[in-house]
């Protein structure tokens, strides 16, 4: 599995069927995605869900409104479903 921060253009080009988790920034200009697809045009990439969690906890501003970050458990449980 791959863990990225991408922009809206990269998201538009991504294979939605391979995304299992999506989290938009509060201003909706950047997306955190967990996907089986390899994406080249990313803003940032992480080695693991744990590393991504750590990043969001260290820099929650802009991603979550309660300053808590995004946990691995959320990445596993809040499934991306295209269209809703």
């Amino acid at each position, binding site marked *: 599995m791959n863990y990225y921060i991408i922009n809206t253009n990269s998201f538009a080009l991504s294979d939605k069927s391979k995304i299992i988790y999506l989290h938009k920034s*509060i201003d909706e200009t950047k997306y955190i995605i967990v996907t089986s697809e390899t994406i080249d045009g990313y803003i940032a990439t992480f080695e693991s869900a744990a590393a991504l969690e750590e990043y969001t906890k260290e820099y929650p501003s802009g991603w979550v*409104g*309660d300053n808590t970050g995004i946990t691995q458990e*959320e990445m*596993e*449980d*809040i499934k991306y479903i295209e269209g*809703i």
Partner: protein
Amino acid sequence: MPNISHINNKAIADVAVFNGKNISDIGEVITLTAATTPSFADSFAVAKSITTGTAQAVYIADSDGHFNFTHNQAYTISFWIKPGWNSSLNTNVHLFSSTTAGSTSANDNMIRLFYHESLNRLYFEYRSASNAKKSNFYLFHSNSGNHAAAYAAAGLGSTYWSAANRGNVGDDDFTMITVAKSTTNSAGSSYAKVYWNGTWLGNGHYGSNGTGQGTPNMTSVDRQIALGSNTWTYSKSGNSTETQFNDLTIWNKQLSASEISELYNSGARLDATTHSAAANLQMYYKLENNGNDTSGNSAPAFAVNGNSNFESV
């Protein structure tokens, strides 16, 4: 006994005959009225601080044998909520959570109801391990398919649930959220029914059988319980302003739709000890300026810590 001034909207002086008797011959009238639904003066709710940690939590550290439901037990959890979060929350807020007493893991006999603000989904989930879990969710902004019932019940329209858009509410802008689970090991809508103000939210996204991974196998150990946060980090409590919770009831059976409607009581919070299923009331927290259980079962009290506090409704 007050004096009677009118009968059937006529002044008593104008009524000559009542039920075939001259009014002057009637010494006393016993008036039978339709049974009224008992309620009580509900003056307070608990407001959960948006700050994380047990020092700010509204929680029971150990349910002391009163809350230890397993995957194959029936139960009902119901509470009233008045959201304080806004549309910038962009994550989930936990409404009700329980895990094994003393555990810091989300995977220890967890039962939870949480709302994911950025997706406008209300989730019910339970699990015994990270790979042994069952869930379903209810989407509020789509008036089609499996989501149409939730759309109608919540009344939020196309705008997501928040303090600025509370949708269909009962008294004092509170909404009663209820999950009633059967003995079947599933969070699907045939087995775990979720209600908004006593109205069933329908099949939910994953339908009658729900979704999940593996087979939860929960043990009947004591649990810690929280309102307004999870129970492993005591976080996910919302943003902006405090969310209020009121009148938590926990029942040791799956309440029927009519029993949940009775509890909703047309939006006026009911004294649950007068409910027709009161014999199945396991824990009852009115949160009337204290965290005490009033079910009669002597369950442990809620601690209300830090900036969390009781507020007038």
